[in-house]
């Protein structure tokens, strides 16, 4: 399979106004193959959402390139960028905040068609009805209702319908189930899987919950403090994590059995360092149980350790 999306040396920084800058994403290089689901995990503040928004040029990254289907999105402006947007859509974390409370469901889902000038009103109605049915909503009963009349799960279905109506090739899912009840999560995850198969989508699936990522991803990328730690085929990563941070994340997945003793956290206690002044060398070294002097002096490059597997650590675990 060919790469649909190729991110190279992507940097996202936010100026604080007092001269300092938050380094949200630093030198990230990542590729997503056509038709696969890439899971992107990391704790809060690790730069996952910044990376996702930078892909969509909302706002554009400070440095680096985003090659989407052969075109560098960071070089596109205005109309050219607008022309490519329908092919790259996004689903957001908070389904209620991602829908305009003053507009009807039919308006929300047909808006992408109106903006991109697809079809006449009759054609649009037909497509909106079809996509609403595809996400499991009854077009007749939801047509004239507004977002506040729906539950979180239903709102997320509407948001998915809005993303699908333009028939994109790729959807960035920014923690699409984090705000939902556990009982609803599986439904939405299954819906995303169905839609992926039906429309031949490529997904970038962002989550802070490894269990969720494990169930949907072909490959997984792990982020810590704005940098990639490990990129690996999903099963290999969950079977044998190569980066100490991945190992720590896996150890943090709770066991549903209360009799299982709490395992070692595999991580030094404390908070992640500030992205204003990230640690020298390896960014994880302040919390890594294996850190030695070399980790402070030398930045570990993301290097291949096995086919389909790359890790940014001087002393990988496998």
């Amino acid at each position: 399979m060919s790469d649909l999306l190729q991110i190279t040396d992507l940097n996202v920084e936010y100026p604080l106004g007092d001269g300092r800058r938050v380094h949200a994403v630093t030198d990230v290089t990542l590729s997503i193959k056509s038709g696969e689901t890439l899971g992107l995990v990391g704790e809060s503040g690790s730069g996952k959402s910044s990376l996702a928004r930078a892909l969509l040029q909302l706002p554009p990254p400070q440095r680096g390139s985003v090659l989407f289907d052969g075109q560098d999105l960071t070089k596109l402006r205005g109309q050219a960028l607008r022309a490519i947007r329908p092919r790259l859509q996004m689903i957001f974390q908070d389904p209620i905040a991602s829908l305009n409370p003053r507009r009807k469901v039919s308006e929300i889902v047909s808006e992408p068609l109106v903006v991109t000038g697809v079809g006449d009103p009759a054609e649009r109605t037909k497509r909106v009805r079809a996509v609403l049915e595809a996400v499991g909503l009854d077009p007749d009963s939801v047509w004239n209702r507004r977002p506040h009349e729906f539950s979180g799960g239903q709102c997320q279905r509407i948001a998915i319908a809005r993303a699908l109506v333009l028939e994109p090739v790729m959807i960035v899912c920014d923690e699409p189930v984090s705000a939902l009840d556990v009982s609803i999560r599986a439904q939405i995850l299954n819906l995303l899987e169905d839609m992926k198969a039906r429309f031949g989508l490529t997904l970038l699936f962002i989550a802070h919950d490894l269990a969720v990522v494990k169930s949907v991803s072909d490959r997984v990328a792990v982020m810590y403090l704005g940098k990639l730690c490990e990129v690996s085929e999903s099963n290999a990563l969950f079977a044998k994590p190569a980066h100490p941070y991945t190992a720590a994340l896996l150890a943090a997945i709770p066991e549903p059995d209360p009799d299982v003793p709490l395992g070692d956290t595999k991580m030094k206690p404390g908070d992640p360092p500030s992205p204003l002044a990230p640690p020298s060398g390896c960014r994880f070294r302040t919390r890594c149980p294996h850190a030695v002097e070399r980790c402070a002096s030398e930045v570990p490059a993301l290097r291949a350790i096995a086919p389909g597997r790359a890790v940014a650590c001087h002393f990988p675990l496998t």
Partner: protein
Amino acid sequence: MSASAAEPLAPARRGRRIPWAIALPLAWVTIVVFCAVTANWIGLADPAAQELILRRKPPSAEFLLGTDNLGRDMLSRIIYGARTSLIVGLCAPAFGFLIGGAIGMCAGYYRGKVDLLLVGVIDVLLAFPALVLALTFTAYLGQSLFNVTLALGILSIPAAARVSRANTLAWGNRDFVLAARTIGASNWRILTREILPNLLPPMFAFWLVAMSVVIVAEGALSFLGLGIPAPQPSWGGMIADGREALDAAPHTALIPAGVMFLTVLSLNFLGDIVRNMVDPRRSAL
């Protein structure tokens, strides 16, 4: 079929009664608006017709609200005065909200340097003494209904801009604005289709309050003799006229003052109610 069996089939009556706090202000404002609109057709005396023999008469069957210093029918003048107050009260904030609202939306949406510049301009306008500006305006451009409305409209720009900027800042951060960007919507479309509809309810609530402020301001200008030129009746002008005879004929000043008080109070009440209805905490769902 027995009566008791038929009862549940009857349409359920809404048990909720409209609370007095809404009904009374609404009724008063409705009466004022109705009288002002229909003034020409409800058989009122000429508000400018003087009858010096009948001056300063207290309310009676012939003159329901008495007569003023020049023997003019107070009821007729109050109602024609309501027309003046309503025209100024509706048009001045409308003008201010149109311009101020647009400025506030631009500042809140584009942020950065645009925000800095526009907020600077608004602050300058806000720092200017309001009454002095209005006085200067009418003194130089001449006293007319249009000029008074324009002056008060300009004065309501800063407040409207601030309300619209604050709301635009809050709504512009929502994910649905980001979603609109991902489908390639233009800034104009996002401002008018995504943000503006969410701005209207709080702006409407504030508009009711601004109306009452403007009615008082028009009264103040007319009281100072720089508002609506005589003989066109206005509440502020009537209070100013009646002031001379407060001891001999208190009704000439107190009746227009009372009418203005009730109107302003009602508009404030209604503004508060609407504001509570569109409270962001409740509409957040």
